[in-house]
């Protein structure tokens, strides 16, 4: 049913069931929000979004109030503005005010709101509570002193990731966001996905930084510092420099990394191709020898940790392949070091990742050969942007360069690993070829593309119908796993990524609450796929060379040793 309502004396159309906020947004009337999260039920906790509704005595939170016919709304009366300003001042009453030193300086919703509302002095002075900084996690630092209790982190962790590592703890002015028993985040069930960082309006949540160690190695002339960058970095990092979402700057990224001082630049899309070769071999092996099915991808460390912690019955279903980051790391420390005659102690390997869980994966025991980790340090996309600025590099005026050989070349199948559905599409292209000896006539597999949390397709190969499913966001994984537990048996291969939409929306990506940005990053990857002439991992001849010169066969002894891993119950 259609309503006519009035916003600031102007008549607009609204639909029954819409909230006031939705109508305001649609009509480009900006009302500030804090606790509100798009596509989630409103919690109505912060009252930032209040408006005046004619005939109502109290101000009304627009995010949770449905429109009614002939409603008349005022969004910026003096009363409303004063009320919002008071809320900000109350939030600031107990805030540390160390913006200059804060990770989120210039990218903080609380800062912008104070600015927009012209808060220029400390009107309300609150008693400062004592808070403990939580640095126990390998990936995430929690600083409750900067928390404004909007609850967004708690909600993503529960509603999107099905983890619930954190919760409101205590009561009244003693309330904080904490783990069970207020232990360090490392003791909780946290899967290190970093989605909580991406939704946090302030600097209360941030990634654990390897900056100092990386800089020290860059400055050390005895070290060969190798860097790899993940498929999604080149289509997201440009946003940090004010360029449009979805701008691909792969060549420039290589140049910038060299300018910073990295001696060798490799592309993780290469090892994504390598992953596909191993993973497809494993899938075909499971299908032909009656192995455990459906098989699950294992490239997302957030998902892997979730499976180890919450879905232990499915551990045998996880592919034993390491992630592309770890495969690249293992190949750098073995094949590359050997051919270039670099001693292990002189080699330092950094990975630029869209992800905070990679910082957990990197230090896992199963990722070490003789006590040496495959990868030494991780930079998130955000951290690399800082490093680029730190080194005074003008990204907009760089000539693009190629990544180094031999681990720099990739097919576009390896590149689309950066989006939910991409791993699956890459795997299907190669599996089809391996099983039939023919290339797919239509390389695009539309069913597994797009931003939906669940995508499925059925493909007939050699008379057998194969079922493929793709889920992102661990809540969606939980739902699918429940179906399988309840007897669903038509699926052979399932791709899971912890972050909604995949790595392009990873917990280490530029903080951007705009869903459009994610869609544009996704489109950028598929555009690269369209433009590329080599669209399948088995067509990457550098990968074939690597097998010929060094690894031998997929699933062979050397591969098994370097490229596969084990799991543990957590």
């Amino acid at each position, binding site marked *: 049913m259609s309503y006519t309502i009035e916003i600031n004396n102007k008549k607009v159309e609204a639909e029954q069931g819409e909230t006031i906020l939705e109508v305001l947004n649609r009509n480009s009337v900006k009302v500030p929000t804090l606790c509100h999260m798009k596509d989630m039920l409103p919690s109505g906790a912060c009252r930032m979004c209040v408006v005046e509704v004619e005939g109502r005595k109290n101000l009304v939170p627009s995010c949770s109030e449905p429109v009614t016919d002939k409603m008349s709304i005022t969004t910026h009366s003096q009363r409303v503005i004063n009320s919002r300003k008071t809320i900000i001042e109350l939030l600031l009453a107990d805030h540390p005010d160390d913006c200059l030193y804060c990770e989120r300086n210039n990218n903080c919703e609380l800062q912008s709101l104070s600015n927009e509302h012209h808060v220029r002095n400390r009107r309300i002075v609150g008693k400062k509570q004592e808070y403990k900084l939580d640095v126990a996690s390998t990936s995430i630092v929690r600083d409750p002193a900067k928390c404004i209790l909007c609850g967004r982190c708690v909600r993503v962790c529960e509603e999107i990731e099905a983890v619930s*590592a954190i*919760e409101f*703890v205590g009561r009244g002015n003693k309330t904080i966001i904490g783990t069970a*028993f207020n232990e360090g985040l490392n003791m909780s*069930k946290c899967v290190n996905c970093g989605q909580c960082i991406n939704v946090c309006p302030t600097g209360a949540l941030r990634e654990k930084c390897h900056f100092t160690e990386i800089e020290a190695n860059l400055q050390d002339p005895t070290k060969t510092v190798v860097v790899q960058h993940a498929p999604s970095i080149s289509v997201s990092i440009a946003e940090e420099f004010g360029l449009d979402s979805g701008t691909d700057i792969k060549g420039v990224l290589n140049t910038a990394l060299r300018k910073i001082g990295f001696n060798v630049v490799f592309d993780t899309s290469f090892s994504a191709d390598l992953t596909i070769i191993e993973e497809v071999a494993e899938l075909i092996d499971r299908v032909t020898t009656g192995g455990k099915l459906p098989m699950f991808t294992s490239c997302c460390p957030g998902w892997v940790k979730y499976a180890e912690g919450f879905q232990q019955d499915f551990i045998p279903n996880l592919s034993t392949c390491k992630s592309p980051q770890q495969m690249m790391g293992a190949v750098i420390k073995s094949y590359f070091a050997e051919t270039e005659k670099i001693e292990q102690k002189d080699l330092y390997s950094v990975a630029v990742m869209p992800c905070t869980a990679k910082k957990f994966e990197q230090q896992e025991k199963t990722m070490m050969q003789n006590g040496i980790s495959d990868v030494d340090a991780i930079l998130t996309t955000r951290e690399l942007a800082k490093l680029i600025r730190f080194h005074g590099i003008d990204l907009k005026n760089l000539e693009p360069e190629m990544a180094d050989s031999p681990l720099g070349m990739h097919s576009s199948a390896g590149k689309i690993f950066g989006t939910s559905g991409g791993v699956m599409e890459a795997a299907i292209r190669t599996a089809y070829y391996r099983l039939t000896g023919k290339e797919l006539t239509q390389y695009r597999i539309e069913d597994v593309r797009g931003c939906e949390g669940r995508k499925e397709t059925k493909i007939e190969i050699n008379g057998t119908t194969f079922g493929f499913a793709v889920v992102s966001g661990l809540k969606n994984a939980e739902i699918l796993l429940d179906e399988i537990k309840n007897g669903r048996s038509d699926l052979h291969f399932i791709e899971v990524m912890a972050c909604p939409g995949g790595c392009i929306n990873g917990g280490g990506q530029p903080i951007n609450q705009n869903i459009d940005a994610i869609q544009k990053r996704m489109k950028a990857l598929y555009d690269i796929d369209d433009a590329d002439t080599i669209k399948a991992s088995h067509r990457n001849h550098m990968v074939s060379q690597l097998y010929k010169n060094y690894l031998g066969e997929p699933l062979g002894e050397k591969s098994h040793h370097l490229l596969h891993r084990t799991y543990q119950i957590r």
Partner: protein
Amino acid sequence: MKTEVDNILETYKGAKRDSLIPILQKLQENEGFLSKESVEKVSKYINVPTSKIYGVATFYNQFKFSPPGKYHIQVCRGTACHVLGSATVLSEIENALKIKTEQTTTDGLFSIEVVACIGACGLAPVISVNGEFHAQVTAESIHEILNTYREKEAKDEK
């Protein structure tokens, strides 16, 4: 091996989220506090994450998360005691024992709890240790009081 906690949980067969509070109350009655182990068991039993249980339990004053000390100190923060300086008394006890309210010393000897009026306003500021009242406590006298318990403990050990 079946524990006391398992036995208690069994009396709540088929329980869901809404039985959380009564279950926690029962467990605390049994153990004197809510241990990590029992909260983890409850979490599995009713399928509610431990963080949520902790969140709910910390909302209510009645739940404790560390075993009470051998000498449980209750500090009255009622109006009469407040007027006569119970805030100083409390912070002096916290400093002396190096713990905060609701915590227990690492040797398990002392724990502190803040209570609203104990009904002994005539003695303000008043504290009670295992039910034994101490009247007109001051920042100085509190050390003597704590020492009597420490000495008592040392004697008992011999």
